[in-house]
C-alpha cells in the first residue's frame, strides 16, 4: 500500500480567482484524472499541467482537497474487531458445516 499524506494538496502560487465554465474543458478533464493524481500515477508533465491548473482554479483546488480528504478518511476508518469468543464460535460453526456437507 502506498501511504499518502493526509494534508490537502500543496499550495501553489498564482491567481485563484480564475473564472470559466467548470463542467467543460480543463476542469472536466482534470476531474477524470484526480485519483491517478492523488495516487502519484501520472507522468510528471501531466502533474505539472494539473498543478498549473489548480493554481489558477480555486474551485478545482477545493474539489481535489475534498477528494483527498475522502481517500484519507477511508484509509483511516478503523474496522471492528472479533472477540476471542466470536473467533472460537465461528471456527466451530465452520467445522460443523464442513462435516455436514
Amino acid at each position: 500500500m502506498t501511504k499518502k499524506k493526509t494534508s490537502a494538496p500543496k499550495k501553489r502560487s498564482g491567481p485563484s480567482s480564475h473564472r470559466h465554465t467548470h463542467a467543460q474543458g480543463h476542469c472536466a478533464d482534470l476531474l477524470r484524472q484526480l485519483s491517478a493524481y492523488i495516487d502519484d500515477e501520472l507522468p510528471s508533465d501531466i502533474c505539472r499541467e494539473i498543478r498549473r491548473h489548480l493554481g489558477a482554479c480555486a474551485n478545482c483546488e477545493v474539489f481535489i482537497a475534498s477528494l483527498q480528504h475522502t481517500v484519507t478518511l477511508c484509509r483511516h476508518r478503523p474496522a471492528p474487531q472479533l472477540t476471542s469468543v466470536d473467533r472460537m464460535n465461528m471456527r466451530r460453526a465452520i467445522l460443523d458445516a464442513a462435516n455436514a456437507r
Partner: protein
Amino acid sequence: MYRDHVDLIYRYAHRLCGETESAKDLVQETFLNAYQGLKDFRGEAQVSTWLYTIASRACIRMRRKRKGEPEHELSLEEFVPTSEGEFRLQIPIDGLSPEEALQNKELRQALDQAIDKLPQKYRMALVLRDMEGLSAKEVGTIMGLNERAVKSRLHRARLFVRRELSARGITHHDDHKSGGLRS
C-alpha cells in the same frame, strides 16, 4: 490458516457488508469454501489474496441471493459539478488528523453510509484499495479485472463517496474531545 487469517477476512467482510452478522456469515462461507478448495490451491498467490478472492465471490453470491436486483453503473459525467456551489462542497477535516476527524460520529456514520450506498463492484474496489491497502494489481487479481478497470472503478467510487460526504454539510464538532464515540 483460520487462526492466521480470520481477523483479516472479518475486517474485509465487515467493510463489505457494513454490519456484524452478515460479516460473520461471510467469514464462515469464505473459510468453508477455502477448506473445500484447499486441494486446488497451488500457492501461486498469497494465501491472503486467495482468501480475499473467495470472500469477494461469496459476497457477490450472498448479496445476489438477498437482493436479486442488477447493480447500476456510475458514470463519470454524473460527478462533474454543474454549479460553483457543488464544486466547493467541503469535508471538514482541515487541521485535524484523520483519527481525530473520525471521532466525529456524524462524519463516521456519513462515511459508512456513503460506502454502503455504493454499488457492490465499486465498493469492493474502494474497500480493497483504500481500506485494505492492496495495490491496484492485487485488487485486479481478486476481482478478475485489469488494472485500468480497477482504477476506473476506484475513481468513480471515490467521487461518489466524496459527493455523499460533502453534500451532508457536516460541520466541525468537538466530539473527539469528549470521547466515547467509537463504534
